[in-house]
């Protein structure tokens, strides 16, 4: 379900008012940048993809239905942008970018926990990583995620369960030393 802020942003965008864009950017740019950085493993790539997402919003926003799920639409565009990018050029993970996502740390223990999750996420396959990241997005409904991934709710549950198990397995065997650089298909 769309939030009141998203509905207002959509209504303004449909009237081509800049404030609609500003509202959408303020609410979603940070979480989308986190999603894209964790998906691609590269901050610079994530910034480029974020720009693509919001320029697409400016082009297509005025045509969106007034009751559209703006959040789901943005994540669908972000995911497709990432997939197109990954098809063009295999990405090399930048561990420093992933580590930097966890800072500034609230305390040492939390930093370790969050840092470990980042590293474990980075080690997962794309299919597992994307489903975990999408489910963790605040306010993104399971039905919307299933539609975005092109699966039904039962398949989404199964995929999520598998991804969750793999993340836990990855967390349990994480080395203390930072990961070596890897290439991502």
């Amino acid at each position, binding site marked *: 379900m769309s939030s009141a802020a998203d509905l207002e942003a959509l209504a303004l965008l449909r009237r081509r008012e*800049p404030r609609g864009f500003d509202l959408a950017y303020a609410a979603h740019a940070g979480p989308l*940048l986190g999603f894209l950085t964790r998906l691609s493993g590269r901050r610079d790539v994530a910034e480029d993809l974020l720009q693509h997402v*919001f320029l697409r919003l400016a082009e297509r926003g005025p045509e969106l239905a007034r009751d559209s799920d703006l959040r789901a639409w943005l994540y669908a565009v972000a995911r497709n942008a990432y997939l197109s990018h990954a098809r063009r050029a295999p990405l090399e993970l930048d561990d420093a970018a992933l580590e930097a996502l966890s800072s500034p740390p609230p305390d040492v223990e939390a930093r370790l926990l969050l840092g470990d999750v980042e590293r474990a996420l980075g080690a997962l396959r794309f299919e597992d990583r994307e489903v975990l990241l999408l489910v963790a997005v605040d306010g993104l409904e399971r039905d919307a995620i299933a539609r975005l991934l092109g699966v039904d709710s039962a398949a989404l549950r199964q995929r999520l369960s598998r991804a969750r198990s793999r993340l836990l397995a990855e967390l349990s065997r994480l080395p203390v030393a930072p990961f070596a650089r890897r290439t991502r298909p």
Partner: protein
Amino acid sequence: MTHDDPVLARLAALPNPTPDPARSEQVRQAALARLRPRRLHPAWVLLVASSTFGYLGGAFYFAVRLF
């Protein structure tokens, strides 16, 4: 949304980065340029008007010659 599952709750707690302000401003300017309604170039208006009048004029001339 709150997650009962501790793993999902941990994922949801991952901090999000802040977009670079300079880059954000660039994106905003480019987006607002796309958001502004585009005015039709006068040449297109002239072309559409002249082809419409040309077609209607031709049709009228043809109809007059029939009778």
